[in-house]
């Protein structure tokens, strides 16, 4: 099922034989199909028609980077999450719309959606219906709480998933309220798990010839990320909520001391330092070169762990005197793990590691113009990713999909527009 769409540059061929009928939105869903599109899958976003205002992907609309234009095609996050995809409009609530979706499903390898848990059933488009359109379809659903269970209808966004699964709890300092996450981490991880389910479904289909339905629960994925501490609770009976916990910057498996985020001289400047073992400590102590650091008792990891608060205070008093770049250079030269707490500009504009990777490719968007987006953190030696096209404008590919793919005549497509089916 190779794309014949014209006007595309180099494309990865890893998944170019795969077509995704993509009903996802936001990041938790769109982030999954983004990865597949970057590796060449033909991802067709199915979106509400233009007259269905306010029912599009919440991220779709926005303001142009220069602030002069706005509209349904100007969302910066939407552009990032939907590079290399196609867009069609379709009223899924109409009988005709449903029939057209069925024809697209018949020609697709996978269907993806992250609606609230029971939307597909309410639309009459549950797995049984999808399977009737295409017996080999791989259907992956992604919701906050999964399709079954007492919370399945609960409203869910990243800042609901993260508190409930325990990730918010695990981000904070002792005796403070939860700091939580300053972004929707589980939208990302959920997207990665969703892509994994799609790919796993395709691998299984290659082997068995059969499609399947996989339901993914984002909160469950989040709970599992607490593994060793969870087992400390279920095996050793040590509740995670206890005095002194969490202490996120210090906590680590394996335990390390010192291990934390320390203030540098500049305004809101910070450095992360991790001393893995006694050898690291000797090198750090030499680099710091102050009397307290030469205390021979601190050469031992268990002693450093017992005296970590004291060490943290001493080390912070030292780091506070120096510029963050100088601290990083000095400690890196000593061979000890260290990093500045990077601001967006630091890591995007000035980090040779991300630059060498080609991590911030520029795409061409039909209305926004040239704009940089995120790349992919893996490189494949034979069929590497390609990201050159920005997100599709709403309904950009109606002619290709309804005409070329589904075989409708131009006047039939015009009629669908006139009757607001597409």
């Amino acid at each position, binding site marked *: 099922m190779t794309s014949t769409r014209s006007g595309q540059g180099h494309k990865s061929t890893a998944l170019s034989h795969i077509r995704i009928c993509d009903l996802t939105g936001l990041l938790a869903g769109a982030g999954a199909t983004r990865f597949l599109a970057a590796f060449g899958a033909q991802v067709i976003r199915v979106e509400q028609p233009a007259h269905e205002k306010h029912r599009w992907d919440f991220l779709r609309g926005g303001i142009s980077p220069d602030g002069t234009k706005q509209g349904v095609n100007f969302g910066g996050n939407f552009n990032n999450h939907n590079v290399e995809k196609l867009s069609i409009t379709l009223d899924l609530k109409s009988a005709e719309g449903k029939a057209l979706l069925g024809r697209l499903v018949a020609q697709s390898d996978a269907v993806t959606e992250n609606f609230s848990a029971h939307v597909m059933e309410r639309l009459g488009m549950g797995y049984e219906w999808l399977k009737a359109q295409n017996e080999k379809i791989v259907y992956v659903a992604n919701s906050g709480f999964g399709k079954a269970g007492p919370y399945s209808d609960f409203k869910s966004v990243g800042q609901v998933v993260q508190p409930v699964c325990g990730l918010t709890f695990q981000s904070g300092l002792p005796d403070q309220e939860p700091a939580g996450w300053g972004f929707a981490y589980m939208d990302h991880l959920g997207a990665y798990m969703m892509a994994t389910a799609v790919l796993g479904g395709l691998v299984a289909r290659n082997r068995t010839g059969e499609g399947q339905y996989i339901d993914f629960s984002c909160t469950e994925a989040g709970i599992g990320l607490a593994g060793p501490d969870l*087992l400390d609770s279920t095996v050793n009976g040590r509740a995670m909520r206890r005095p002194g916990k969490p202490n996120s910057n210090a906590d680590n498996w394996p335990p390390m001391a010192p291990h934390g985020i320390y203030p540098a001289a500049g305004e809101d400047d910070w450095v992360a330092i991790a001393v893995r073992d006694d050898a690291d400590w000797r090198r750090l102590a030499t680099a710091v070169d102050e009397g307290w650091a030469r205390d021979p008792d601190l050469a031992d990891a268990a002693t450093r762990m017992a005296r970590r608060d004291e060490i943290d205070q001493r080390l912070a008093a030292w780091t506070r005197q120096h510029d963050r770049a100088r601290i990083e250079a000095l400690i890196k030269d000593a061979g000890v793990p260290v990093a500045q707490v990077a601001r967006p500009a630091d890591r995007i504009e000035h980090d040779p590691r991300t630059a060498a990777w080609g991590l911030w490719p520029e795409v061409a968007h039909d209305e926004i113009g040239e704009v940089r987006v995120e790349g992919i953190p893996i490189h494949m030696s034979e069929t590497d990713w390609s990201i050159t096209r920005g997100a599709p404008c709403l309904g950009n590919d109606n002619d290709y999909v309804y005409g070329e793919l589904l075989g409708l005549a131009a006047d039939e497509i015009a009629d669908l527009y006139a009757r607001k089916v597409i």
Partner: protein
Amino acid sequence: MTALLSGLRIIELASDRAAYAGKLMGDLGADVIVVEAPGGHASRQFGPFVDDRPDADTCLWWWHYNTSKRSLVLDLGSEDGRDAFRQLARSADVVLEGEDPGVLAGLGVDHVHIRADRPELIWVSVTPNGRRSPELHEPATDLTMLAAGGLVWNCGYDDHGLPPIRPSGGHAHHTASAFAVMGALTAVVHRDLTGVGQHVDVSMIAATNVTTEVSSVDWLYRGATNQRQTGRHASEHKTMGIQVQTGDGGYCSNPLGLTTAGNYQTVIDWLRELGLEDAFGEFFFLPMGVERGGVSLKELGQDVEATEIYRAGREALYLIASKLTTAEFFVQAQQRGIACGAVYAPDEALADAHFRFRDYPVEVEHPELGRSYTYPGLPFTGVQIPTTIRRAPLLGEHTQEILAKLARERASTA
């Protein structure tokens, strides 16, 4: 039932960087053989330990990240060990490793050597900076990668006198491992069609960089630098708090605020049911929220009345929350249509009725200890999704059976 990834053989060189990737594929049914050096991989000493007694076979870090794998001890320092590894790698669909660049090449067992006569093999390498960076060998840990990769900048408190926060749990590893799995399976789908394998180079620092949501995009798109705020999205401009404290001292997150007319009616009804109408001095704002059809977030700070109504709605939630437990406030708010999340500790979530109803926690047998323990299960449901996982292997538990099979295969092809 055939498991989703059954039939795939993964040879994993034990590492902390890629262990989660091997676990995910093993839990989904792949045959994952984790190769350890004599004495066991270092992560068997990470802790915590069963009954706090350090032992290679009772490390809970190892237990969690190595479920559904088999353990094979090989000494890659010996020619015999390297031979066995080569033969094993050639029998695999995917090799997964997290060695520093150059280590395996020095031993003659890297992807270049082994893929040379087996081009269909897929080889996934997970390293801090990937292999395109000028800096291949700088020391790094989860903490320093999350700091350099931009995650830490976004997390913390309104009070910037407190340090930014790196959420604990090993998320640089989780993120990179997720991409390792996606890369491996993408390569398998391609190989199934073409017979061609490849090398998959995973950069942990790149993985973290692209896992910061709006932080990257707001900079790339419009040059905005978001600032950390307590419990909510980092933002270019300060936004209102979303965490409410509950009567038991816990917290709930109310990320979407009260925006619809229905939300305001709900809060009115809720206050009345709890007998709190008179206790809430700003009650009169709430019917105004109903009458004006709710409050759009765009009006906040722009329209004085709308802002006051919204603020009063939040105050009403604070009052209600103070009378309820975390679990009560969470469930009752959601049942009333208000987006809300209880700030559970992970073990509290694991024990919650919803997740137990879904059989998410699984009992994992530990015959060597004569009992079973509760583990987090798979976040997927489906006919080919396993409903159980196997405990992590003891050190070298499967060495004999795997080497014996290799010997038979060698004999049969000799």
